[in-house]
């Protein structure tokens, strides 16, 4: 039985630290599925995650309007999706999302991933962010298969270390 990692963050800086642990162990081709309410800090997490992959944090902004942004990291291309404005999963496919989800050199991060649940690769990392106070966040990380399990374990070690 694979266990979730539950991380309690007290500040944006701590969330950044957590995001960097995620980036440090991420294998090529993995998909991150982010869920959480408006204002929970999904884009903030992505900025920290991208920083860990060598993308300038200032280049990471909300892709709500353009639906998808590509960033060039040191080793991988990061594909940042936001399905907030999409009507149904077919529109996600119409974006050409599969191309990126299946690209072995691309790490995909999807905000509002619950809207495209059926299209996610089975071995993805689920990150659920929940606000528990003005600056406090509970981040639950769940692996969906062997690759994401390895990442979740490495984040667990970092969090406990």
């Amino acid at each position, binding site marked *: 039985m694979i266990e979730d990692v539950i991380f309690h963050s007290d500040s944006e800086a701590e969330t950044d630290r957590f995001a960097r642990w995620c980036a440090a162990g991420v294998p090529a081709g993995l998909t991150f599925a982010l869920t959480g309410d*408006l204002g929970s800090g999904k884009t903030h997490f992505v900025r920290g995650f991208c920083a860990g992959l060598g993308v300038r944090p200032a280049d990471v902004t909300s892709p709500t*309007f353009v639906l998808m942004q590509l960033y060039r990291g040191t080793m991988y291309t990061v594909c940042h999706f936001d399905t907030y404005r999409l009507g149904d999963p077919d529109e996600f496919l119409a*974006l050409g999302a599969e191309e990126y989800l299946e690209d072995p050199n691309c790490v995909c991060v999807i905000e509002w991933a619950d809207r495209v649940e059926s299209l996610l690769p089975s071995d993805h990392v689920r990150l659920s962010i929940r606000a528990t106070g003005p600056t406090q966040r509970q981040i639950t990380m769940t692996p969906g298969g062997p690759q994401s399990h390895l990442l979740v374990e490495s984040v667990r070690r970092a969090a406990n270390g």
Partner: protein
Amino acid sequence: MNRRHLLAIESSCDETASAVIRDDGKILSSIVASQDQLHAEFGGVVPEIASRAHVTRIVPVLSSALDAAGISRTDLAAVAVTSEPGLVGSLLVGLTAAKTLAMCLDIPLVTVNHIEAHVYACGLDEQGPIFPCVGFVVSGGHTSLYDCVSAVDFRLIGGTTDDAAGEAFDKVARILGLPYPGGPSVAAAAESGNPRAFDMPRPMLKNPGLDFSFSGLKTAVLYAARGVPGPEQLSETPVDRVPDLAASFQAAVVDVLVQKARRALKQTRHRRLCVGGGVAANRHLRDQLTAMAQQENIELRIAPLKYCTDNAAMAAIAWEYLRAGRTADLDADVLPGLVRRRSPHATSASPGSS
């Protein structure tokens, strides 16, 4: 043959649009695919977004633009197309169509920056010259300030570090239980609200630069509406709070936009402010900008309402590019993503590249 016409194509996001602009700047036609007259051609509702929708819409839209202008393809002097910024797949559809036309008709291709075209919209319909000016584009995707010396010399001097202003309206609408799009629905709710009822932050106003940040304001509205996260937080915003919250939020956004525009005018020493983009339709923003322009004794130009939202007519700027010799090669690529000041090319990864 009478090659005095420019065909413009815009497909950077949701709308498939085309326009015909004569060399004297007169807009002979401007077609946007979401307009009613085209719905019949597609047999009902079109998927709002997605490049595949552009593929099915582009040819009818181009034909409609030519027909409405009463010209044929052989009357065209050049083809202009939005190549940045926007959605990768959507941009590619327009660019491919433009390249095909340019090649088949053996006429120049001109690539246009969508955000710069939004500023240029302030001068459409013979409203007179707009340069030099501070260009200000406030839309769902952008909150960008430009130092505009001429049509071919735009310098980005400020932008958002997270959410765009229009995006903040959409998200706050959702928090308040108001319909999409959030611009008009939040403005309508604000009509009966007290803008001082809630003390909202004015993000980045104390910061000396020209950058914006609206993500924190969105969160502040959420907390004011439903309480801070925890067991006490409400799952929905009480209806009786909505007008005051909408008014307080709108006042904060407009305050920041107006003060940053004022600062940009001082910094560049331009005497004219040209505002475009969908949020420029907001009446409170228009009123406050007008008041600021009077105080500062500068000329305020706001794009006509029909050219605030996405359209191809504003690609009339391409005539100025042509006169300056700025044409594109047939292997021109798109530059997707959003405009950014610090490193404009950092996100130019092409589709499929890695």
